[in-house]
């Protein structure tokens, strides 16, 4: 083994290790940033390692590519608003897939348009360009839907299933033929083209709400394309990074579809039959943002000020002890917890007091409405536990409502509102609560006691 090879392989091994450590660091939020810097370092190491490759003889195109890429990539990283994250990630997948696909195509062309390609390598190249091509167009479609360049609703037409299955069959046949005999450039390029079309037909029928799952899945495909590249050119860091991506994207899309209460298959194939939108809508057609205990937990774990708004639902669930538990955890994490007691919360005067006293929550933390209403705007999270009427903005605005004129708690001024209740059912006054549909409100459905227990559990994990 030449020292150059040893150097390259060592660089690749190091890069692989850094990638793994970097991903691993994401399991601990406090260390995540550090870890991603390690991963970036890994990327640098891999690039440097590659540049000493003896095959590389000219650097001008490389430098040009690196410069142009950086010039485009930097603003994409720095200026894209956080809210545009999903579409940014989607378009980014496209770039990754373009690279993988072009490398595959160039490789095939370079090897005598398949003449010098062995069968195993052909298999790898085939996977590379297939996954790559479908990721290119698929990602672009996803981007278009999220950016609202394309209609975000599922786009379907009659016979779509048949067409899709047909295309898939043809691509598979071409692939099999190429493996048997790689020297069929026509078949190869046709396969690439089919991959591109297939990407479109995969994503178009899926609704905007399910896009995160799709993006994550495309991430997985992009990873598999990289891994296939690795197999094709015998490069381990590509195989490892590709496998990491492939696994992570795949698992993530499963986790996410589960969090949306949809089966993974439903998201993917249900689309062909135009699945219902994932998010609930009310009579007025407003969407409700459901949140998982995990997500709610992290928000609470990192909040500086949490204001708990207990209501009759806390009493029904007898969740007062769990409230105390949760508050203790948040305080242990350095946050502050206050309790906003609305004068008519519950079903008897002082209902909340009795229960919170039972849970030994100090009187000083119980705040009257007038005292706390100005605090909500400083709160990171307003945690509404089984309260409804007492936080219903209709009391301020809707003259027709039975609670019009009642002063309410200004929970909506908090940066984030998390509401624990079992359903979208109304409270005592029997009226809908518009708060639940606001942008900064998330609903954690379920019995308050059980939900709180889950939150406690998750915060401990975080």
């Amino acid at each position, binding site marked *: 083994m030449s020292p150059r090879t040893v150097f390259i392989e060592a660089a690749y091994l190091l890069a692989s290790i850094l990638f793994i450590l970097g991903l691993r660091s994401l399991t601990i939020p406090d260390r995540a940033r550090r870890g991603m810097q390690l991963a970036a370092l890994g990327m640098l190491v891999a690039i440097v390692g590659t540049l000493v490759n003896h095959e590389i003889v000219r650097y001008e195109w490389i430098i040009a590519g690196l410069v142009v890429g950086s010039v485009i990539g930097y603003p994409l990283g720095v200026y894209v608003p956080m809210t545009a994250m999903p579409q940014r990630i989607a378009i980014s997948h496209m770039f990754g897939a373009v690279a993988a696909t072009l490398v595959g195509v160039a490789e095939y062309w370079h090897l005598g348009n398949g003449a010098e390609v062995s069968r195993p390598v052909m298999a790898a190249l085939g996977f590379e360009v297939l996954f790559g091509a479908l990721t290119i167009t698929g990602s672009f479609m996803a981007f278009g839907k999220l950016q609202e360049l394309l209609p975000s609703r599922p786009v379907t037409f009659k016979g779509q299933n048949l067409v899709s299955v047909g295309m898939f069959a043809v691509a598979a046949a071409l692939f099999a033929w190429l493996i048997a005999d790689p020297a069929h450039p026509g078949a190869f390029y046709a396969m690439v083209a089919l991959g591109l079309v297939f990407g479109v037909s995969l994503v178009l029928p899926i609704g905007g709400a399910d896009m995160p799952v799709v993006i994550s899945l495309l991430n997985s495909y992009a990873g598999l394309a990289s891994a296939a590249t690795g197999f094709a050119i015998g490069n381990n860091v590509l195989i490892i990074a590709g496998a990491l991506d492939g696994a992570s994207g795949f698992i993530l899309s499963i986790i996410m579809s589960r969090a949306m209460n949809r089966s993974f298959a439903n998201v993917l194939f249900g689309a062909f039959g135009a699945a219902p939108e994932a998010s609930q809508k009310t009579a007025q057609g407003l969407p409700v943002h459901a949140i998982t205990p995990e997500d709610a937990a992290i928000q609470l774990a990192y909040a500086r000020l949490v204001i708990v708004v207990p209501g*009759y639902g806390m*009493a*029904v669930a*007898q969740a007062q002890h769990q409230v105390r538990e949760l508050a203790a955890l948040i305080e242990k994490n350095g946050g502050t917890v206050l309790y906003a007691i609305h*004068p*008519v919360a*519950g*079903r*008897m*005067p*002082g*209902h909340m007091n*009795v*229960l919170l*006293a*039972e849970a030994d929550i100090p009187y000083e933390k119980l705040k009257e409405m007038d005292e706390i209403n100005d605090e909500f705007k400083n709160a990171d999270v307003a945690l509404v536990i089984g309260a409804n*009427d007492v936080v219903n903005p209709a009391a301020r605005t809707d003259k027709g409502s*039975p*609670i*019009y*004129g*009642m002063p309410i708690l200004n929970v909506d001024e908090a940066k984030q509102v998390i509401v624990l209740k079992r359903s979208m059912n109304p409270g*005592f*006054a029997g009226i809908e609560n518009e708060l639940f549909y606001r942008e900064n409100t998330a609903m954690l459905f379920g019995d308050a006691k059980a939900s709180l227990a889950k939150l406690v559990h998750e915060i401990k994990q975080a």
Partner: protein
Amino acid sequence: MRIAVPRETSPGERRVALVPDNVARLVKQQHEVRVERGAGVAAGFADAAYEAAGAALADGPAALQGAEVVVRVQRPTEAEADLLPEGALLVALLAPHQSGPLLQRLAARRVSALAMEKVPRTTRAQSMDALSSQATLAGYKAVLVGADALPRILPMMTTAAGTLAPAKAFVIGAGVAGLQAIATARRLGAVVSAFDVRPVVKEQVQSLGASFVEVPQVAAEGTGGYAKELGASEQERVLGAIAAHVKDMDLVVTTAQIPGRPAPRLLTAEMIRSMRPGSVVVDLAAETGGNCELTRAGEAVVEAGVTVLGPLNLPSTVPFHASQMYGRNVTTLLQHLAKDGRLVLDPTDEITGAMLVVHDGQVRV
């Protein structure tokens, strides 16, 4: 508005219609408040505190002079009614169903009157709802009075001198007072059960950690959150269930009421005799005839070792907090009535209309 607060004259009444905090709030809104000297003393509010809050002090009848609104806790005697300035507004717990002659007299003097009992039971009017605020205190106090009369303690205690079993408390009628009684008895460590004819109450009872005594097929939800009277067969099932349950109870608090009707009879003499000697019944419905057959309003009856208490006006035994709450109810009402600083009585207003028992020389009950 010129508001007057006379001293309460009913025997045993220690509350006052406005406390200094309320006065300060009203004065800040440009109302004038005149308080009869000594009005708040029994409740723990000195004259000086009223003065500091911006009220004028006056002696006896002078307090009422020129008042547009006279606020009281209890209804005035007919003699006192005659002292009210003509055209003024009287706000008090008027007991309109029992006060026919008084209301006539007020109408004759063209005095308008708002009955604090008639605040509608809507979420919006809840801060004026004196029945609720006073019932809260009554429920709390009922348990204290009962616990005091019991020959045993409420909590369980494991001691070197043996284990004391916790007392079993039973609350009949889980409205505002009943729920508060449940909470208080639970706080003191009793094992609490409760019964009500309105089915929604079950969840509320359980939300306080007490158990609910079920009677199948009884559901007497009336309007405005109140109960209605039971049919004969329902009544029979209810009595049967109570009889079976009450035998084993140490402390029973009854609060069952039906607005405008005598209190339902839920404890018979026979049931009382079936209880252990030393047990105690506190009947909060004594004023409207009592839920217990043996209740005598304002007295303690002992039958077969069981004490039946029929306390009257329990809120007045915690006059400090009772006045604070009543005063807040009255203040919110006054703020509701004042339009641009002037008193406006609008009989079409949902709240005012419901409360207005005398207006324009007419009794409106």
